[in-house]
């Protein structure tokens, strides 16, 4: 919106395959700033449509599991050994077999919670207003259309060339967006 100059070029496709082809070609032209919006995960997109580095989320979940295991065990250890030692039939205060169950559940809880919050953090969500995807064409990307968005300012490839790539692959609609 800054200077009224269109900053993005958006191509709308009716099926995933042409969109993947178009993304592939744009990638070959050296355009990095391509983003796809699809109603379901399209695996073939792979690296072509700026899928980015492999996600660190599995490691974050593993770290969550580790923290959960430690916390889950420690709170029981704190309870039964440090704070409120209670002799039940001479059993050891640090009854690790009995503590395993609680520690296991908390481990899984922390792993899932790390994945849950990590996912939204990694996706920069919630973001209720995003000027990049405000145009009406993006509304159909959640239903039945496959949308490619190219930042025209981010590379030296002329806008007409990008437009031609969209046309070659049968884009239904090509829109210039301001934001």
């Amino acid at each position, binding site marked *: 919106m800054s200077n009224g100059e269109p900053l993005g070029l958006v191509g709308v496709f009716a099926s995933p395959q042409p969109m993947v082809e178009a993304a592939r070609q744009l990638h070959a032209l050296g355009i990095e700033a391509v983003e796809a919006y699809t109603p379901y995960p399209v695996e073939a997109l792979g690296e072509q449509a700026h899928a980015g580095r492999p996600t660190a989320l599995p490691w974050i979940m593993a770290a969550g599991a580790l923290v959960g295991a430690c916390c889950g065990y420690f709170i029981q250890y704190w309870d039964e050994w440090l704070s409120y030692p*209670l002799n039940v039939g001479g059993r050891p205060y640090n009854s690790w077999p009995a503590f395993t169950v609680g520690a296991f559940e908390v481990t899984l809880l922390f792993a899932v919670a790390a994945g849950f919050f990590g996912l939204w953090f990694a996706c920069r969500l919630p973001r209720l207003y995003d000027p990049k995807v405000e145009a009406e064409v993006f509304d159909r990307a959640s239903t039945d259309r496959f949308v490619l968005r190219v930042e025209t300012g981010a590379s030296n490839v002329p806008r007409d060339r990008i437009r031609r790539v969209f046309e070659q692959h049968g884009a239904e609609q090509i829109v210039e967006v301001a934001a």
Partner: protein
Amino acid sequence: MTLAADVPRPAPVVEPGVTLRSLSEQVSGRLLSRRPPLWWWVGFGWALALLLVLIVSVTNLFVTGIGIWGVNIPVAWGLAIAEYVWWIALASGGTIVSALFHVTRSPWRSATNRIAETMLLSAAACAGIMPILHLGRPGLFYWLFPYSTVMGVWPQVRSPLWWDFVCLLCYILMSIMYYYVGLVPDVATVRDLAQSRSKKVFYGVLAMGWRGSARHWRKHKTVYAIMSAIMAPMVISVHSVVGLDFAAGLTPGWHSTQFPPYFFFGAVISGTALVVMLTILVRWGYGLENVITDYHLNALGKLVLVGSVMLGYAYLFEAWGPIYGADAADKTEFASRVFGFTAGAYWGKIALNILIPQLLWLPAIRRSKAALFLICAGIIVGMWLERYIIVVSSLHRNHMPSYWGVYYPTAWDWSILAGSIGLFLTMFFTLLRIVPIVAMSEVREIIDKGGPR
């Protein structure tokens, strides 16, 4: 033999006419239409009436005390505990259908998992209130939380009852997170199709600005797959620990090493049976026959059958222990269980959980919605009987004959059962109006792979 091969007319996972657009409009339309259909009002009305029963019963319970129930020494655990186990088993079925079969990439899971998970959350709430109602001093339930109190008193964490508390708490929290991660792309669809301002805002906030960008999808897919792989062992552990509540006691009939898997088998059959019943009803009510086809019901019917066979194995072992063992108390308790006080319930559970479900071997039965529905309803009743027997029969024939007694539920016991069903249905019907009941983004993948381009 594959699933599709033994259905005479190979049932498609999604009917050929379904397109990306028609699917989105069909599922979202149920939420965006201003007036709910008549059957919804009828069901919701009954649900609210039963919920009122729960409110009255719980109020009386809290004011008067658990003396309004039939529980007493020696049978100090009554219907509330039996129903806790019953509800948590029903809830577990939702996770089994949803998480376990996401890990195996079963195509039939995609259209039924939202129904299963909605059922899970509704049933877990019912399971959660039962132990609290049973406490006697329900206001002090928070003493179960392990934290350093000013009194310096902690819960006894070596007890399976405490493990159970942790399991249930973690399970409900994890289920909500798992549900929401799967839900976000679908509520984004509803947001984009909504016309009215209020619904746009409501679903817009719920979708958090999800736009289905490729980068987001990739992260979403990774996290969702790992979550599924975690939820599957989680649900096994939850119901196994419920089994340990009993197995760790020295009471005859409870003190058995087979209890954790025995309880899990019960969760498979009863939970899946409830998923089948709700799937048939939702499919009919919302007219989703083109997305939830015979393929799904065939697969679910087989899962119920697997649960029945596994449970039959556990029942054999339940009998084998006392018969082969040398413990007189075990033998006495088992004789009373089969031929004595709970004989009717015992043979009822054998018939409803084991014998009648064997009909599901026949493809014609799996194709018939009415037969499937009735068999599954029978299983739900049969599983309730099983929980009742486990709780009551063991306590009424404990080691010492001087410590024997019987238990008869009072009207208030039954009203809590009716009321908890009301709570379940109220939650389910409410969620039915709020969440897209079919996981659209997942069914779209199936349309893309199988349907005509």
